[in-house]
């Protein structure tokens, strides 16, 4: 079945959508699509069929999000922890992924028409090479689309993502692109797999489990978390509306918390820069305390230099990541 569902909302759905869109809407929604196996047990199906139904529900949810003007969706498709499941189930899931990504490649025109950009986030090195190649093709094919964005977390856990970001910053230090003192919360965020997306406004977990399961822990520190008891394959438009209403009820307090956090971050960065300047001037100076004007000038220069270093590093990182995908694509051309 296709990734893209055509079709409009029915009248009642359209009216409800218009009512909701009168208020603040989330620009980025993340889903933990939990409940496929329980659904299969409930309907006396095979586990594999449960996962298939789960994928179909994903396609439908994307259609609803498009009609609700939600441009970005992130989904938790496969956790690194899932590798611990039985070989049969893991192989089944990887096969399903292979099928779906291959299907995606056939829908190139449709994806272009709707402007869908697909990104896959995770430690893709853990996947079999052929799956990596199919994923790379899908990502490269839709790279320049910019109407809506689907981020699929595959072979992903938040701790691996954060560790990888720290490793990338250490690589930047090794290459002489940045200094260790340039490390900050903002820089770490830019090194995450999800650096091309804003943080999710709303995180929805289905099937009634109330836990985060190592998903987007860094990015959802100031997001609205909604836990719904419906199983993922049974998710409906009204469940989505309910979650959006929760977001709208908490919108103001979340915005306030985000603003406070931004101010604190800016203050911390300023303090860090001042500390670096103080150290630098101490080394340069001859025991006399530097005057305020000299300190101010030094601070400005330092900040500009730091920002330039950081930009160069981020460009190099982006190039490294793009090369990873294009190399995988060219390998399939050669074979």
């Amino acid at each position: 079945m296709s990734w893209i569902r055509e079709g409009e909302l029915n009248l009642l759905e359209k009216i409800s959508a218009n009512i909701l869109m009168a208020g603040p809407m989330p620009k980025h929604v993340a889903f933990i699509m939990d409940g496929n196996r329980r659904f299969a047990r409930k309907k006396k199906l095979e586990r594999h069929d449960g996962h298939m139904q789960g994928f179909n529900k994903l396609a439908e949810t994307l259609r609803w999000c498009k009609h609700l003007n939600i441009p970005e969706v992130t989904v938790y498709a496969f956790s690194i922890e899932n590798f611990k499941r039985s070989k049969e189930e893991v192989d089944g899931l990887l096969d399903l992924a292979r099928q779906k990504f291959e299907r995606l490649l056939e829908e190139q025109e449709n994806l272009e028409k709707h402007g869908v950009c697909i990104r896959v986030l995770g430690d893709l090195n853990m996947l079999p090479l052929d799956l990596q190649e199919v994923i790379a093709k899908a990502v490269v094919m839709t790279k320049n689309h910019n109407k809506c964005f689907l981020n699929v977390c595959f072979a992903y856990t938040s701790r691996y993502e954060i560790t990888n970001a720290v490793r990338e910053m250490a690589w930047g230090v090794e290459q002489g692109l940045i200094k260790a003192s340039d490390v900050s919360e903002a820089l770490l965020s830019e090194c995450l797999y999800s650096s091309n997306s804003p943080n999710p406004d709303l995180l929805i977990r289905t099937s009634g489990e109330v836990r985060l399961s190592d998903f987007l822990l860094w990015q959802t520190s100031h997001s609205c978390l909604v836990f719904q008891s419906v199983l993922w394959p049974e998710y409906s438009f009204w469940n989505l509306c309910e979650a959006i209403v929760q977001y709208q009820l908490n919108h103001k307090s979340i915005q306030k918390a985000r603003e406070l956090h931004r101010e604190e971050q800016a203050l911390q960065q300023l303090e860090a820069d001042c500390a670096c300047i103080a150290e630098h001037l101490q080394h340069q100076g001859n025991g006399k305390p530097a005057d305020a004007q000299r300190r101010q000038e030094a601070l400005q220069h330092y900040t500009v230099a730091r920002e330039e270093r950081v930009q160069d590093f981020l460009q190099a990182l982006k190039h490294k990541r793009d090369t990873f995908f294009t190399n995988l694509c060219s390998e399939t051309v050669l074979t």
Partner: protein
Amino acid sequence: MALLYGLIWRLLLALVRIKRATVSWLRVRLRTWKGSFWQRTMAALLLPVPVSEFKQNKAGANQSSDGDDDGKGAGSRRSRWISDGISLEKLPVHIGLVVAEEELSYTDIANIVVWCMAVGVSYVSVYDHHGIFQKNNSSLQEEIVRQQHNLLGGDDSTFNMELLKNGSDKPQHFVVSCRPIVKVLSPEDGKHSIVQAARKLCHSVEKKEWSSKDISVSVLDILLRGLTLRSYAPVL
């Protein structure tokens, strides 16, 4: 048309807020209602998740509400809480409290901490968004000690727990002395501590003591738990 939708949206949110306020008002009233059948019915209607009953206290419970044992003393309270903890299928090892209230109540938080410890939870962490508990750490610790005396009696911070094995021929007594650990956290212990750990690692890389390839989830984990880098050398 947009104006109409806007009005309906405002009405919808107002209705949801009224429903929430009514539900929390009813929940408060519910506590004063005696009669377990009525309590269970209202709980089923109003609570979003089912509350599991303690199997041991189901039949022949002599103390069904807190109001009854006001005069019975700390000792019976403690043994009741300990047996409640034992009768649970699973007990969390570590409970985290995220306190989002506008006005912080040290007594209420101290009570929750003492109950957690009495039931057998080994670690309790308390967090608030402005770091107020951390700034007034000593006041909170004093309040916890005070509530320990009020609710549990006994000496300062060690609890003796007697665990009776159910269903065996001879009851076996395991006396466990557990000293629960309470941590008070603030936003600095969140992302900020990860950034500090990252900076430490990058400094080591700058000094050529470590390579970026040495950085793994377990290395970062150890660093965050407070051990120094030098005591964990990379395997070359």
